[in-house]
Structure formats: C-alpha cells, structure tokens
C-alpha cells in the first residue's frame, strides 16, 4: 500500500471516465449485473425500501401508545403492526443491511480481488432476497401476521388466524439469500486475497464479515427448518412442536433462538467491522490490539451460539440450563468489551478528525455501550425475571441491534460514499443529520428503559391500568418523530449529492486500504487495473498523515483544486 495515490483523473474533466457506473447505463445492465458493486447498490436501494416499510409500522405502534386506552388501532391490528415492524426490520433490513450492501461492495475491494468468488450466486442471492421480500409484502397486504416476529408455537402453529405461512416462506427464502452471500464471502476471503495479504493484514471489516458469514452458515438453516416445521404443522398437521402430540413448544424456542440469538451478532459484527475502519482512519492511529479485535470477532461468533437460552429464562427451561446460559451470556460481554476498550484506546493519542463518519462511529460507541451494559442486567437470572417481556428488553435490543447497526450503516455509507458514487456529501448537513438521529434515538428509547423497569409489558396496545406511563410513552413517540426526521436528512442530501455533490478525489480521507489506495476514483468493473501487492500491515496510519479533505470542498457544487 505504499504506492502513491492515483491522481491521473482530473476532477473537472468533461470526458467521461469509465467506471462500474458509467460502463453501461441501461436498466438491463443493472438487473443482470454480476458486478459485486452494482449488486451492492441494488441491495442498498432495496433495503431502504424495507426500512421505510418497517418504519411506517413502527410509527403506527408508537402512535397507538400515546394514549393509555389505545384508541387508534384495534388490538388485532396493533398485533399485526408490531409483527410487521419486527419481521420487516429484522429479516429484510438488519440482517441484510451491512453485509449485503457494504460487505458486497467492499469485501473484494479490500481483498484485492476482481470480484466475489461466485458472481452469479451473488446475483441469485439478490433475487432470492427480492423474492422473499415480495412474499413478505404480499403477506403484509393480505392481512399480516399477529404472532410477533418470533412465531412462538403453539400460537403460530395452532391459534393464529393470520398469514403465518406466507411470512415464514418469506423468511425462509430470505434466509437462503443470506446463505448464498455467506458462502460467497467465505470462499472469497479464503481464496481470493491479493498477494501479500496475509490473515493478519486483513482489515478488521473483513474479519468481522468472516465471523458473520460463519454464523449465517451455521445458524440460518436451523431457523429455516424450524419455521418450515411450523408451516407444515399448519398445512399438513405434521406437528413436531405440537403439545397435542406430546411435543414441547419450548423446543421450538430452543431451535428458534439457536439461530436468532446469533442473528443479533449477524447484525452487530459487521457494524463493528465498519466502526473499526472508521475509527482507525479518523483517529490517524493504528487500531489498538488488532489481533484482539480480530479474535474477538470470532469469539463473539462462537460464544454467540452458546447463549440462546437466555431468551427463555421465563419460558420454563430448567434452572440448570438457565444458570449455564446466564454464565455464558455474561462471558459474551468479554469479547464485546475488548472491542470497545480497544476502540477507545485507538482514539487515545490519535489525531481525531470529527467528520460525519467519525461522528456516527462515536455515536455507535455511545449506543452500543448503553445497549451492551443493559444486556448484562438482562443476562442476570434474578434481574431478568423482572425485566423479561417488558419495555426494558425492547429498549435494550433497540440500542444494541438498531442503534448499533443503523449508526454503523450510516457511518459506513458516509465513509465510502465518495468511493461508491464519486461524489462528496455536504459535511455540515451530515453532522446535523447525525445529531438529530442520535438525539432522536435517545429520546425514543431512553424512556422505554424506565417504562420497562416500572413494569410496562411489551406488545400491549393499551395501559389504562397505569396511566402514569403516558408521559414516558408520549416522550418516546415524540422521539420516534425526531428519529424519522433524522433519517430523512441523510436520504435527501445523499440523493441530492448524486447530482450536485462535489466530485470526490480517489482518496478524500487519505485513508489506508486497498479500496482507497489502489482503485480509481470510482472503481472500474473488475476493481483494479492490476492486482495489487500488499507489503504492509493494515491501518498503517500515523498522526502526521495528511488530513481528510477540508469541509469547504464538500459543499454542494464545490470544485476541488488539484492537489500537488
């Protein structure tokens, strides 16, 4: 990575440079593309649609809860709304967002590969995702589901009178999309690294995606077959979990959480990878304890499979197992804490540039620490009995999964936007957007901690038994409004920047890494003009490095002066 930057592309030239976007403008070329970058962009557009759908459902839920007597929605409708929110956000947004968008786009670039190992499989995974999403949308418009995203039996298999089978089909198909992506990532990371790119020179983003892919591989089929068993019970009366047949509904919960707990690591590990990249870049410091962060990714992946029982402390599992899982859950805090402390140590004595991606990354730390620490309360057996099924849990997992993943997704999108599109976003608006989202998030979910601690159960559509909860709920709903405005801001300015944004240089942040140093301003179809040779460690930053480009160059319409 010691070669000089590629500066042969003048910023203002009218002749069009050839890159992965300009190579072909037809719609067809996008929809049958095998280019991992284009597929990443397709994923980006699609996950945003699902994010919008899920947000609307969340809006209904929050709106209903402003009144203690639940006057806006019927209780049935409310159940369908929070289920729609959960299913769409988890299966079609959070699990997909970072691996399929940023992972797809940047993994081959960081590895010095021309493409992922199986480009056709990659395209297939996108269409599987789209097909699964289509089933999901059909399920929603044809009545929705009222079981909650967890599909607990026997509610889902015997009693629920809603579109359980359709929704399960959607989740099943989307699961196979994830598996295809994971297979692709694993093979690519193992077999397609550039010469000289040894395992301990890999960016931490790659390590995180490796761990994520392993989890997807081992976990997704388990939930797929478990949900399929619920579907065949509804359709054919083949009831493996049916108490009517002497089966145990808790077994469903075991099998469901065997995947669905590791699934939260599918959401958070790639986020951690993104944050590692950004913090190292804008602290101009090598990541402190690189090996430990890399190993902690794998440790989280492994330990994450041994903690599922903590979702069932109050479901009737044996005390012995509950104690075991309580212990294992507390242990997961160790690799997570290793990461957080190492990021903090990376910031220490670094040259910190508080750009928008960095602001989001720091925001990620704030949300993740709150979410992680409250997770420790929940891992405690005695405390959890009080907290299970309350808004405390809701707030906890929103802080970890949603706060973590969305902050990191936005951080990553801002960080790599110049590489993905060749345009700069307006820095000032970026920071405003970050502040609004960050404060909106706290406004929404901080009151829910208090609500949950006071005993407000989740999934209730009224609370007339405790009208004193109203103030918190109204505050939370107001926060959701702020959050909604906050999400609008980046969407608007990022879209505008496609047309009006200043043209980005090849490496606006002076960041290290193959994706910044060895590619064109916007990468060409096969990424590199020649396969790079890596001769140094990752994150070879020093505080004397050149700063990121100044904010004045990132306004709309700004024109960069050619440096040197």
């Amino acid at each position, binding site marked *: 990575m010691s070669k000089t930057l590629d500066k042969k592309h003048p910023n203002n030239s009218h002749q069009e440079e050839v890159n992965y976007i300009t190579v072909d403008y037809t719609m067809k070329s996008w929809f049958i593309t095998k280019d991992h970058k284009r597929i990443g962009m397709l994923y980006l557009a699609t996950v945003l649609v699902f994010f919008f759908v899920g947000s609307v459902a969340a809006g209904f839920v929050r709106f209903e809860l402003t009144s203690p007597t639940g006057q806006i929605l019927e209780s049935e409708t409310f159940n369908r709304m929070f289920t729609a929110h959960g299913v769409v956000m988890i299966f079609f947004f959070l699990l997909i967002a970072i691996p399929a968008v940023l992972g797809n786009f940047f993994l081959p670039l960081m590895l010095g590969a021309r493409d992922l190992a199986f480009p056709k499989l990659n395209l297939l995974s996108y269409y599987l995702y789209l097909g699964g999403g289509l089933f999901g949308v059909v399920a929603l418009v044809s009545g929705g589901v009222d079981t909650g995203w967890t599909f607990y039996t026997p509610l889902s298999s015997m009693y629920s009178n809603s579109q359980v089978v359709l929704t399960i089909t959607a989740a099943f198909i989307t699961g196979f999309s994830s598996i295809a992506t994971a297979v692709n990532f694993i093979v690519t990371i193992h077999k397609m690294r550039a010469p000289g790119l040894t395992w301990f020179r890999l960016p931490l983003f790659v390590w995180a995606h490796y761990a994520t892919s392993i989890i997807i591989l081992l976990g997704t089929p388990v939930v797929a077959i478990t949900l399929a068993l619920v579907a065949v019970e509804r359709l054919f009366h083949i009831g493996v979990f049916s108490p*009517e047949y002497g089966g145990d509904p808790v077994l469903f919960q075991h099998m469901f959480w065997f995947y669905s707990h590791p699934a939260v690591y599918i959401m958070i590990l790639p986020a951690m990878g993104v944050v590692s990249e950004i913090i190292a870049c804008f602290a101009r410091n090598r990541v402190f304890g690189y090996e430990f962060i890399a190993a902690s990714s794998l440790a989280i992946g492994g330990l994450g499979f041994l903690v599922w029982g903590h979702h069932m402390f109050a479901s009737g599992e044996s005390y012995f197992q509950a104690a075991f899982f309580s212990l294992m859950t507390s242990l997961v805090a160790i690799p997570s804490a290793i990461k957080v402390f190492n990021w903090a140590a990376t910031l220490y004595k670094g040259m910190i540039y508080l750009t928008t991606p960095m602001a989001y990354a720091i925001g990620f730390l704030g949300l993740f620490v709150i979410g992680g620490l409250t997770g420790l309360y929940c891992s405690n057996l005695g405390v959890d009995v009080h907290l299970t099924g309350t808004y405390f849990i809701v707030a906890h997992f929103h802080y970890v999964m949603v706060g973590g993943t969305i902050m990191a997704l936005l951080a990553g999108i801002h960080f790599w936007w110049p590489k993905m599109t060749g345009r700069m976003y307006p820095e000032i608006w970026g920071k405003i957007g970050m502040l609004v989202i960050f404060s909106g998030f706290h406004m929404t979910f901080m009151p829910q901690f208090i609500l949950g601690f006071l005993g407000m159960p989740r999934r209730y559509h009224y609370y007339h038994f405790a009208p004193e909860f109203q103030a918190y709920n109204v505050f939370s709903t107001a926060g959701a409004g702020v959050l909604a405005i906050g999400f609008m801001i980046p969407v608007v300015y990022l879209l505008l920047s496609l047309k009006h944004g200043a043209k980005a240089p090849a490496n606006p942040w002076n960041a290290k890494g193959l994706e910044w140093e060895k590619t064109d301003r916007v990468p060409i179809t096969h990424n590199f003009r020649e396969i790079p040779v890596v001769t140094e460690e990752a994150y070879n930053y020093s505080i004397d490095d050149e700063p990121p480009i100044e904010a004045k160059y990132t306004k709309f319409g700004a024109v960069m002066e050619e440096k040197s």
Partner: protein
Amino acid sequence: MSNNHSEGHSHVIPIPVYFRTYLQLLVLMFLTVAVAVLAESNPSLREMSYLNNFVAMAIATTKAMLVVWIFMGVKYSSNLTKFYAFFGFVWFSMMFLVYLDYAFRKDEINTGWSHVPANALPRAKGIPGS
C-alpha cells in the same frame, strides 16, 4: 492459502478404489441389518438389544465417513476443504446443549411438557378461542 495442490486438475481416482469402497459400504449395511434382525429375533439377546443402538450408529458413522472420505473426495483435497467438510458435523453437536434443559427438567417444580392434559389443548384452526 493451501496451494500445495501441485497439478492443475484434481486427482483422478482409479475405479477399483471406488468399487472397493462401494463393496465396503454394502458389507457394512448388511452387517447393521443383520445385527438389528438378530437383536430383534433372538429372545436370549433381547436383554442386550440396547447394544444394537450403538452398533447401528457406529456403523452409520463409519459408512458416512467412507462416503465423505472417498466418494466425496475429501481424502484427496486440501486442508481447507477438509476443515469445512468436518466443521459442520462438529458444530451440529453444539445443538445437543439443549439436553441441559430436558435432562434437568425432572428436578423442576413443574416438569412441564409431557404432563399437559389433553383437554387443555383445543385445536382452533379457524377462529381463535373457538
């Protein structure tokens, strides 16, 4: 990256090797069937027929190993492929942690799942609660 795969194409394994494996598989299969029939039919062995479980599973595992090792060519492939070939089987055993739950249910106040009276289980496919 394991690149000590010297020649460009993978090993062409002679047919006799495959045929021998096929015969071994068939022999093992007849063995396991014979043991099962014997355990079932012979009253003097009835007491020990639980051993049949071990025999059957041991033979099944051996057969599976033969298929993976020879037929699926793992024997002739790189260490990386070997790792991925066995990783799944190893990780599958993780699922048996669930027995931590069921093995200790008998110590619980409410032993749960096997003692639900049948009349407590209405099967209402249509309207909830009906």
